[in-house]
């Protein structure tokens, strides 16, 4: 009986989430589209960093690339939106493979620094290549129905989570976690670590680029500083780490809570809210190094949990 109730409850929530634009105003729908896009990006970061252990600081590069591919397809070739998104995703995955082959040999800090550089490089390239509209940016056609973006992004997020769940129960998922836990040992088990890392990076790029494509059509205007903004990479990281890196739903929870708090604070404390992210990073690192999902998975939680975290993870 309990189980049935649980499923009924989950089904009601699913229906409520799926039909948000029908009963709520444009403001809430807009807010949720932002949440879902960030959830896709955070989940993308989670694949390469949370599960595979390669902390990319330049995942925004896939977002920007996806945004530009969709924009250029729709402006120049008038391809339908969904088809443009598919082109974006393929471009994102291909780009991840191409840059992944050299840079996934690097570890830890070195990998992080190079990825940071790649985001900046792509921004500079876009500024200087004529067909991308350079610094002036690109304007896209207006969508007839703004609710479209809610449904498309929600479907992409759901597909991503289901896909990731499927991956994690298979060989690639175990390979990724093994690489994160101990790459040398993974090699000794006969795991093709290079292939595992590149596949994980490609999945990350694939979905992050879709988020970029949706964003481009949604905002109707893109330029390099907006879609290659390094702060977005940082936000993906904060959301994932706050929610729980290496957990399936942590990044989604992280994206929701952090965007909600930051929107709320920025309307009420215009200047002070910028301190919020810094403070949150510090607090998360000290008290919740394993993220929110780890707290929720504990049975009974008390001061002991936090004290143990401080003791174990102090520098």
């Amino acid at each position, binding site marked *: 009986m309990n189980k049935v109730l649980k499923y009924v409850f989950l089904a009601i929530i699913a229906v409520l989430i799926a039909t948000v634009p029908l009963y709520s105003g444009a403001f809430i729908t807009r807010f949720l589209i932002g949440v879902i896009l960030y959830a896709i990006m955070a989940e993308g970061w989670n694949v390469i960093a949370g599960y595979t252990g390669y902390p990319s600081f330049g995942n925004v590069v896939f977002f920007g690339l996806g945004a530009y591919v969709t924009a250029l397809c729709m402006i120049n070739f008038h391809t339908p939106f969904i088809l443009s998104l598919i082109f974006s995703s393929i471009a994102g995955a291909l780009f991840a493979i191409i840059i992944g082959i050299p840079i996934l040999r690097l570890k830890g800090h070195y990998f992080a620094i190079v990825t940071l550089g790649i985001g900046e490089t792509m921004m500079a390239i876009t500024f200087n290549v004529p067909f991308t509209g350079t610094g002036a940016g690109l304007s896209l056609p207006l969508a007839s129905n703004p609710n479209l973006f809610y449904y498309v992004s929600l479907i992409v997020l759901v597909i991503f989570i289901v896909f990731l769940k499927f991956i994690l129960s298979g060989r690639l998922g*175990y390979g990724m976690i093994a690489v994160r*836990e*101990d790459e*040398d*040992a993974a*090699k000794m*088990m006969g*795991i093709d670590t290079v292939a595992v890392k590149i596949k994980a990076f490609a999945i990350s790029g694939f979905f992050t680029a879709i988020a970029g494509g949706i964003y481009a059509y949604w905002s109707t205007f893109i330029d390099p500083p907006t879609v290659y903004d390094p702060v977005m990479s940082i936000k993906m990281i904060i959301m994932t780490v706050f929610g729980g890196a290496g957990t399936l739903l942590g990044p989604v929870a992280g994206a929701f809570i952090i965007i909600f708090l930051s929107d709320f604070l920025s309307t009420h404390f215009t200047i002070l809210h910028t301190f919020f992210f810094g403070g949150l990073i510090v607090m998360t690192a000290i008290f919740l190094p394993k993220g929110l999902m780890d707290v929720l998975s504990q049975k009974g939680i008390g001061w002991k949990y936090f004290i143990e975290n401080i003791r174990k993870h102090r520098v």
Partner: protein
Amino acid sequence: MENDTKDKKMLKIEKLSAGYADTQVLWDINLSVENGETVALIGSNGAGKSTLLETVIGLVKPISGLIELENKPVYSDSASISIPTRERVKNGMSLVPQGRHLFPNMTVEENISLGAFLQNNRKTLKKELEKVYELFPRVYERKNHPAGKLSGGEQQMVAIARALMSKPKLLMIDELSLGLAPVIVDILIEIIYDISKTGTSLLVVEQDVQVALSVAKRAYVLETGKVVMQGKSKDLLDDPQIQSAYLGI
């Protein structure tokens, strides 16, 4: 008879040189392990024992020489053959690395299962797991614990169990007894015997010469990257040089 045994070499290493970047560690190593044999590799710190095992499994790139598994080259500079680690594992090599290198946040069972990563078959996986648990009842009791939380001896057992999951013909163990209590070492020696009885060849790196020479019939002594002595364990134990250098007699 002599020819017969020659044909059955599990591992043959000839004139192998290897190292990291600019530092050469191994110089013209010659070593062999017969089919079903247990061989020990002894030597002091920095002699190159771990490097040798890592070179055999393919984690360290050799400079020159030959490595053969069952008479098939896995590395040969003259024929420019060098097959990747995963192929070597597939062909029957397995390494228990120094420091064990378990996946700390995974459970014991997940750790052991990953040893069978290349055996893509869930049914045989279960059977193999049962076999390994039979060999390590203590590991079975701990199968749902995170591997990082076990004691050193238990971790070593998990590492060996994991290495056995790929059904190796040649099992290499780097530092069997390092940092473990004597009681645990005795259990591990028993387990090495059991593994050997199933026909698996073993190449065991060991700092404790007494332990090394009690598990293996034959041993090689490595010093600054060169094989300086080799022979039957019995003879080595009686050798005055070994006695003064390693046994303190």
